């Protein structure tokens, strides 16, 4: 299965969109426009992009505290996301969720989750709905390497395997929890091996190779629908920024960070590939400018939009 040029350009544009979206957030944060903290996925764009673009709109995802990329790649409007982080009425959650809790059901995003491992059992329930409703769709569950050690991971994978649920578990192994190296936190061979131990076919891939992610997710989705069994992907990647805004990066070396930035950056690598395949500097520039202006206009529009009104929050707490 080879990827069309059109798709490749989409993949590039989406990675750029995520990168620029989060860089814009950083800038807003430093200008004191944002309340609270946030978790940036800069450096990990290939996983979110390759995975979500391999899905249909009707497929669902569950996301994490580091979910901006998942959300955008699944089709969210950057304007509404900026608006959400700024507490505006047009935000996806009307200013009630913020960075860690954006959901976009219209595009099949069941929502980011502030609880590590919190989305795993939810994804199993959504996959059960697909099974009961005999739908030909899957649920892709994003989670980090740190979530692998939570009890909820165990209960979710065990049940998904027993009940043959159409769920694709996708572990974004960026090699650290908050500060703990995943090899100090996960016993046994590897995270992919842990997936296998539940009788779930699992694979470890280069999470910074957007095409590999895209192809693997496409293939696994087909296998899930054909075999009616779940699948598991460990995508190895790396986060450039601190865990959150308060991180001083004491637990890793700047050499390590620089190595990943220089040698393994998903966007750089993919641009190189596209250029080998004949993409000209002009074409690239044009693509990127579209993204830049989308971000610019979205930020401006969000900053100009009205704050979320103080409604009766106790009433808002119930359906």
């Amino acid at each position, binding site marked *: 299965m080879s990827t069309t040029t059109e798709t490749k350009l989409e993949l590039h544009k989406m990675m750029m969109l995520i990168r620029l979206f989060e860089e814009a957030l950083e800038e807003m944060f430093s200008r004191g426009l944002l309340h609270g903290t946030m978790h940036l996925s800069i450096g990990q764009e290939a996983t979110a992009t390759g995975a979500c673009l391999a899905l249909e709109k009707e497929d669902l995802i569950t996301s994490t505290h580091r979910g901006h990329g998942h959300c955008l790649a699944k089709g969210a409007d950057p304007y509404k996301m900026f608006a959400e982080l700024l507490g505006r009425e047009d935000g996806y959650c*009307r200013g*009630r969720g913020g960075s860690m809790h954006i959901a976009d*059901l219209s595009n099949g995003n069941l*929502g980011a989750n502030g609880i590590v491992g919190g989305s795993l059992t939810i994804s199993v329930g959504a*996959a059960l709905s697909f099974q*009961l409703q005999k739908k030909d769709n899957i*649920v892709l569950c994003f989670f980090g390497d740190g979530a692998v050690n939570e*009890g909820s991971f165990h*209960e979710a994978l065990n049940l998904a395997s027993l009940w043959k649920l159409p769920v694709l578990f996708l572990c974004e192994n960026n090699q650290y929890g908050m500060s703990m190296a995943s090899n100090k936190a996960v016993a046994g061979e590897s995270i992919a091996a842990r997936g296998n131990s539940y009788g779930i076919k699992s694979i470890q891939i280069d999470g910074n190779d957007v095409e590999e992610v895209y192809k693997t997710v496409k293939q696994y989705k087909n296998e899930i629908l054909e075999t009616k069994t779940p699948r598991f992907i460990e995508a190895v990647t790396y986060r450039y920024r601190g865990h959150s805004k308060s991180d001083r990066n004491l637990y890793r070396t700047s050499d390590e960070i620089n190595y990943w930035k220089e040698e393994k950056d998903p966007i750089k690598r993919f641009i190189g590939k596209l250029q080998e395949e004949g993409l000209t500097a002009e074409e690239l520039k044009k693509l990127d400018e579209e993204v830049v202006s989308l971000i610019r206009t979205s930020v401006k529009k969000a900053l100009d939009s009205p704050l979320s009104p103080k409604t009766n929050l106790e009433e808002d707490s119930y359906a």
Partner: protein
Amino acid sequence: MPELTAGQSINKALELILETYENSFIAGEDIGIYGGAFGVTEGLLQKFGEERIKDTPIAEDVIAGLAVGASMTNSLPIVEMQFSDFIVNAMDPIVNQAAKLHFMYGGAVNVPIVIRGASGGGTGAAAQHSQSLESWFCHVPGLKVVTPSNPQNAYDLLLHSFVDQNPVILMEHKLVYKQKSNVTLNPIPDIPDLIGKAKIVKEGKDITVVSYSNMVNVVLEALNSDELTGIEAEVVDLQTISPLDIETILKSVSKTKKLLVVQEAPSHSSVGTTVITRVVGSEVFTQLDSSPKILSGLHSPMPSAKHLESAVIPQTDDVVEFIKNMV
């Protein structure tokens, strides 16, 4: 109008729900061939099959979590916590997810799930199988908490909880399961108007006794005591403990001028302290002619020995004692 135990009436309500809503299902431990630890799901597997009567591994976190995910995707889950004590293993999906998603996502989703659990003591099951943890869930915005006290309201409140679009925690007392009476098998309601409504189960003018769950039965039994002849107590069965039907309570107390709350759970940070706080915080405060009291379970884990267990849980004699001292 059949005579049923509450266990049986709940079974009937579940059956009606499963027949009526194709997208409803039940999940829990030993709810299939075993019929549930308290027999509440007996026969449902045979009627509805494994697809909809889902026996799970012993894994409460995913039992509750799958309900959340399923409810966000057009399914209508009812899950069982075999003993409500085990809900400790399902607190994240219930408290951090189910309770908050509707608000956190700006109203974009509903989480219409029902979580049933067998609560309470009196069966000699000891400290880890006898708790009344319902107050915890009342403290959590976004949840509703319902506590039946007899076969009829066990049936009706389950149907209404199911129709309610919010996550509802149903705490069913083990001794209520055994209560037996004639039950009108009402149809599934369009609006869940029973949720949030207390019920005056006995009218009176001398004192208001607010209670819920099995303690309502203990209170009613106590009122038959000769020692209380001449005293007309008004008994309020809260039925829903969050949100509280404060109007009904205030109306009664402003009539009787006296308030006693009786609950099995310990007092600290509980439903009973909330009832009293709401009453004394209202204009009814000035009408009270005596100090409002709470009769609760002791602040102690549940002992296994029968004679110690009954020292922890309020008994009819204790209720009589309290009422005598107050009226």
